[in-house]
Structures are given as structure tokens and as C-alpha cells.
């Protein structure tokens, strides 16, 4: 078992590294195929009045006139020594740009995850606690509702009601505690839906098991039954779902940050995509891939340890598919 586990772990780590490298190259290819780059786009703005000669000179300084494979090779050799390059849009080192924003996104993503978990478990508890005709059905509809209301609508409503009408937070102070909480709610709501769906399904399953019936027949209250018996087995699959919601959190952060005026990885991506700032995009995609892969790797590696029922048959864990980067 131990040796099996080591083999399994090694395989998963190697797969993870390949995924990250592929993400890096893939980003390069996709962006290079598109016409234009930040330097040329700025120079070609008719307001600027540059001559062709001037444009050619500057573009060649950035090496953007060289064949794509040479540029890719350059970028890969830089990556190997840990140099992420310089942003073509802002002229600042990529590491500095990412360093400035990563903290904000981390805070947002973690608080959104906390919001999502609290919401999901509250809904889960509610579906077991409320009587069938006393609101349980309504509660069960919540995840679908949360998924179908776009993130930006939630965000705009929150801002309009809590910032502008009630004055509970200032949009200007977008990184402040109050503003962050509301941004986390906007981002956390759709994420909670996925967690809640899985949790409810598992709770229903566990509640139908004999041990639950036995516990109920012994006169256990609904709250104690939920906390003592149903919660733990139902929560295990949630670990996998949480790992998968990393993609949702990162993707949703782009929109949430935009709406709440936060400066995080999402807003950096937005600015870099619109200007085709290749070095920054490569770095961010790689960072996202690393985060996604690491979180899923940790979940995969933890799973067999948490749940002894999981067999490592052929090195695959139960109910877990290989997932590519978002």
C-alpha cells in the first residue's frame, strides 16, 4: 500500500508539471496567433502620428518582429531560470505586477470560499432540518438559482443597495474590509451552489442508509443526527468539489474584481487580455495552472488518506477525473 501510494503520488506530480508547461506554451501560441501586440497597437493609434520607420524601430527593440518559434524559445529559456520577463504593456517586470495583485485575489478567493462553505452547509443543514412542505423544497432550489444568476448581477445589486443606498461600504476603498466582504459574497454565491448540490445529494444518500435509520429510531434529534452522523461522510466528496471550485473562484474573480474596482489577478488578466500583453498572460495562466493543479493534487493525495475505502486500483482514485487547467 505504501509503495503503491508513493508510485501514485509520483505519477500525479509528473502529470501536474506537464500540465503547467503545456499551459505556458499553449498561452504563447494562442496569443501569438492573434494579430497585434501591445507595442504595435499603441504605436498604430492614429492619434499618436508615428511614421512607419519609427514604428519598425521600436517594434524591433522588443524583438516582436522575430519569428514566433524564436520568441517561444526565448520565453521558455527565461522561464527555466525563473525570469518571467517584462510586461509589454506597462514596461514593468511581470513578477512585480503579479506580486502587487496576488494578495488581493488570495484574500478575495479565500473569503469567497468561506462564504460559499458557510452558505452550502447552511443550505445542507436546512434541507435536513426543515420539514418537506415547510420550505425544504424552496431551499433545494437555491443552488440552481445561485448558479443561474450571473455573478456580475449579484455584484451590481450588492453595490447599488449596500454601498450607494445604505452607505455600508465605499466603492472607492475597494480593498477595505467591508467592501471585501461584499465582493466575497458576490463571488461566493455561485461557488456555494456547486458545493451545496454535492452536499445535498450526499446527505440524502447517507440519510437513506440503515445507520441513519437506526440513529433516528433511537430518538436522535435532527440537529444531532446531522452533526454527529451525516455530516462527516457527506463532506468527503465535498473536498473534491472544493478543489474543483478553484477554477470557478479564479474565473469569477476576473468579473468580481472588475465590478468592485479591486486590483487583483483578475483585473490584471482583464487588462492584459485586452492589450494582448503576452508575458503577463503567460505568467498568470501558469500561476492559475499551478494553483489549480496543486490544489487538485493535494485533494487527490489526501483522499486515499482520508477515506480508507478508496482503493488505488491502477493508481486512480475514486470519482476523480484528470482535469486540465481552466
Amino acid at each position, binding site marked *: 500500500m505504501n509503495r503503491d501510494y508513493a508510485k501514485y503520488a509520483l505519477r500525479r506530480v509528473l502529470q501536474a508539471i506537464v500540465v503547467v508547461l503545456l499551459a505556458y506554451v499553449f498561452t504563447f501560441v494562442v496569443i501569438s496567433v492573434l494579430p497585434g501586440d*501591445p507595442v504595435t497597437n*499603441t504605436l498604430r493609434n492614429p492619434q499618436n502620428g508615428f511614421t512607419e520607420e519609427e514604428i519598425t524601430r521600436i517594434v524591433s527593440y522588443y524583438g516582436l518582429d522575430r519569428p514566433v518559434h524564436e520568441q517561444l524559445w526565448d520565453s521558455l529559456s527565461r522561464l527555466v531560470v525563473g525570469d518571467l520577463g517584462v510586461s509589454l504593456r506597462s514596461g514593468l517586470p511581470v513578477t512585480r505586477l503579479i506580486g502587487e495583485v496576488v494578495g488581493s485575489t488570495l484574500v478575495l478567493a479565500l473569503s469567497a470560499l468561506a462564504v460559499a462553505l458557510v452558505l452550502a452547509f447552511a443550505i445542507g443543514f436546512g434541507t435536513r432540518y426543515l420539514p418537506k412542505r415547510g420550505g425544504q423544497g424552496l431551499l433545494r432550489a437555491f443552488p440552481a438559482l445561485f448558479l443561474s444568476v450571473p455573478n456580475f448581477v449579484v455584484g451590481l445589486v450588492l453595490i447599488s443597495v449596500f454601498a450607494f443606498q445604505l452607505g455600508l461600504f465605499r466603492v472607492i476603498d475597494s480593498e477595505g474590509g467591508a467592501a471585501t466582504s461584499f465582493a466575497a459574497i458576490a463571488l461566493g454565491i455561485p461557488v456555494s451552489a456547486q458545493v451545496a448540490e454535492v452536499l445535498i445529494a450526499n446527505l440524502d444518500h447517507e440519510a437513506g442508509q440503515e445507520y441513519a435509520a437506526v440513529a433516528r429510531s433511537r430518538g436522535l434529534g435532527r440537529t444531532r443526527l446531522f452533526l454527529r452522523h451525516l455530516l462527516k461522510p457527506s463532506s468527503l466528496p465535498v473536498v473534491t468539489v472544493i478543489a474543483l471550485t478553484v477554477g470557478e473562484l479564479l474565473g469569477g474573480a476576473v468579473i468580481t474584481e472588475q465590478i468592485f474596482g479591486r486590483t487583483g489577478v483578475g483585473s490584471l488578466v482583464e487588462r492584459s487580455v485586452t492589450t494582448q500583453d503576452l508575458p503577463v498572460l503567460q505568467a498568470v495562466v501558469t500561476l492559475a495552472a499551478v494553483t489549480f493543479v496543486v490544489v487538485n493534487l493535494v485533494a487527490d493525495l489526501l483522499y486515499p488518506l482520508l477515506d480508507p475505502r478508496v482503493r488505488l486500483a491502477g493508481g486512480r482514485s475514486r470519482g476523480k477525473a484528470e482535469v486540465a487547467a481552466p
Partner: protein
Amino acid sequence: MNTSSAARRVRPPGRALRMIVGLATAVALAACGPGVAANRGGSGEPRQGGDVTFLIDSLGDTWIPNNSAISSFQGHIWGHLTDKLVYVDEKGVVSPWIAKSWEQNPDATEFTLHLRTGVTFSDKTPLDATAVQANLDIWARGDATRGINPIGLFPKTYDHAEVVDAATVKVFFKAPTLGFIPTLGYHGSILVSPKTIALPAAQQADLSNDLGSGPFVLSSWKEGDSVVLKKRADYDWAPEVLGHQGPAYLDSITYKLVAQPSVRTSAVQSGQADVAYNPSPQELKSFADQGFTTATPRYLGFVNGFAVNTKVAPFDDVRVRQALQHGIDRKEIISTVYTPDWQPAQSLFQSNVPGATDHSADFAFDAAKAGALLDEAGWAKGADGVRAKDGEPLALTLYANPYLATSKSVDELVSQQLGKLGFKVDVQAFDVVTYGERVKVNSPSVAAYEVTRSFIDAGIVAGILTDANKGENWFGLGQSDQKLVRLATGVAGSGSVEARAPLLDELQGYVLRQGYFVPLTQIVQRIYLQSPRLHGVVYNGLAYANYYTAWLG
């Protein structure tokens, strides 16, 4: 009564009293007239102190001064961090600033600038002749070996500059360059410390390394988020025409990026910020009704309009171009897409450009005349209402200019108007990147190129209208139109504004009557929604708001 209840709805409770006061001020201000005039007339004496928050839709790309100074967004910040050699007001009048006086030779090929003394950059480096020379060189040439662009619109005729003494610089040009002095007031021509100029591009990209001599200095900044400026206590070299000397009244200005237009305007309405940049034109009236100040200053430059490519059939026929010229109802554009704050075009130049003359009659809307011109040119109306000649329909594709938010709506309206005349008009809208790749002035696939361009001096036409001296050749005429070449060369070679004025006047009339340039409306590219507490804002010739003279009431 209507307006006060509408305004109160968006304000937190308990602010009703302040709102009423604000309304009273706004009513008083509204009486002074719209736009710029309303802003200058504050109530009472300027007050010291206060912090202003300005919500902006973008903070541009890089902060390398040469590469960013003309950005519609970063220009706001540069305008407060740096000074210029001359000041150009909203009427295009040039007045002394860091250059306290200047003279030129009769050919306008040599200029001598006399500098104000005692001016320093924020690192205490003196802003003297050596510093000015270093700035002129980098504006004109950039430095391709360090990835630093030249200032695109700086006169390409620049030869070199010489330091005569600490307070005198002599500048030499290869050809007459009457536009040189006004260009020094252009948003690209910002004076930065020679220490900054010497830095590599990656360090210039860090705004904290970019030192100017302006009334504000950088307090902090975060890429893509905000820039905070604080007043410079020893500032004492403002342009005389601003009527205020010494340090600014305000303690600080915070430029904060808020991408959502509705969030920007709601924040100002709810008192969380003082200025929102670029609200939508259609909303301006309701903001004004609620007691907020709105400003729609015009920059100096070309009006919004089409440069017609005479190489593309059927626009090689002057009658078809004239039909286009008379077939557009500009009044309807203003009433439909814009508000009465927008002014009809009177020429190919904005009417505040010195030397712009009123040629409205040359392109007045007259559908009957336009129809007759097309009939005469042999374009007969078919059963479907589209005119055709030799089996070819009278087709035109308009490409909405992505640098002007309202461009697509304007083009769609124009397409309806021309459609009634028998044109078959197609409107294409591309994003900035695709537009840059596909839509170029004077390209065989672009019959009408939509112009939005600011400039400081009308003399720029000499390098645009024909292809003489590597000109941009807007109408595809090359140098085939003798009269246009004569006028443009005359404008370029003029040694004085007085000698140039009649030539410019004749040139405007000629270009419009020939249907080379088809004006739409005067252009407002910078729109401001402002709290009624803020007074004394001044807009310069490039329509940037200047808060040096501003104060909070």
C-alpha cells in the same frame, strides 16, 4: 421639486440639507452657462485644503513619460505632476509658463526660449536650459535602443537645440515650423527631470521614478488601480493666465480606476467621489438636473468627420463627394446621439482652433441638392431605393472609430440619412486592435476614414492633407491637386500667424467644397461629471481638467 426628490433617492439619508444647498449652488451655476464657464465661477473665496477623488475608466498602459503622455487617461495625471514650456488655453491662446518669453527668426526655423529661473523638479534638480534641451531631444527622437518612443506629433523638422546660458535655449529646425511654440503646450510635451530621462525604460515605467516640476507630486500608486498625488508645498511657477500662484489649494488628488461607468457616476451622486470621468452623453442632462456639474470641454483639433479617399470609386467624382457633404443632417446627430452641449461643426477644425473660420454654408444639409448632384452624376434610383450606375450600387462602408465611444451610433444615423438619399451604407465596428490592422486612412478599402485627432496648431494640415514631405495623404490625392498643394505648402512655409491666416481660411473652404473632408460634429472626447462642492476647475486646450486652481466649498 422633481429634481430634488430624484437626487435624494441616490443619497444616503440625512444628507437632504446638504443636497438642497448643493442644488441652490447648481442653479446659480447653471445661470452662468454650461461647461467651462460654470466651473470657473465658484461661490465665495477659494479654501485651502481638501482631497479630491477622481474616478477614471482606465489608467492607460505604461508610465514611461514619452510613451504615455498623450493618453487620454494618463494625461490627467501628467498634467498635475509636470509643467510645460507654454500654456495653451481652451481657445488655443498660447501664453508663457516655464518659457517666460520666446522669439523666432522670420522663417520660423530658429526659436529662442527664455526660461523662468528658480524652477526645480521635485528631486530639486533645476529645470534649466540643459534640462529643456534633454527633453526636446527625447520628445523629437525618443530612444529606440531603450524602447522609448518619440512624441509622435512633435515636429519632424526638429534639428537640434543649443544651450545658450542657464536660462536660454535656442532651437533649430530643418524647415519652417510655425507650430513649434504651440506644440510645447501639447499634452506630449511634458517636462521631466533629466535624471528620469536617463533611466532605462523598465525604471521609467515605475511612476515613482518619473519626476516633474508640477504643482503636485506622487504620493503613492498602484498599477491598474490608483494614483495618489499630493500638493508640492514650494510650487511657485504656475502659468500667469491661471490667475493663481504658489501651491495648489487642494491637499491631494486620488485618481482611482473604476471600470464600470454606472459605478463611477453613482459614486459621485452618492457623495463617495468628486469627479467621474466619461459618463455617457445621454445621461448628462439628468445629472445636471440633479444639481451636479457637468463639463464637456472641447479639445483643439479636427472635428469628428470623414476624410474621403478620392482614389476609391465613386468618390473620385466630386459630385458624389459633394452629395455626401450635403446629405448628412448634422443637427439630427446632435439631437439624437448627443446633447445640446455638443456643437455643430463649422469647418474641418474645431471652432476654438486659432485660424479656424466658419464655413458651415459649404456643407449645409440639403437633401434636394445632394439628390440633384447624384442624378447629375448619373446615379439613378432603382426600385429598392438604392441608386446605381452601370449596374453598380452606390455603396459606402463606414468604419466606426473605436477611440470615440459614440462613433457607432453616429455612423448608424448617418447610414440612415444617406440611405434615404439612395446610398447603400454598411457600418462596421471593430475593436481597437482589428481597427488598427484593417482600417487605415488612404487605404483602397476605406472610402471614408473617420477622423478623431487633436492637435495644438492648425499648421499640422501641411503634413497631413497631401503626401508632400512624407505627409499622410488623407484624401489619396498625392500632389495631384495643384490648389491644395499650393495652399498646404503655403501654410507650412508661413513665417507668421498673420501671413498664414488667409491661406488657412482658403484651404478650409476649398477642402470642404471639394468634399475631401466631410465634417460631422465638433468633438468632445473628455466628459466630466462633478460634485457641486468642487469649484475653480480649469480646462486647457486639450480638454484636460486642471485641479491646480480647484478648491472644495
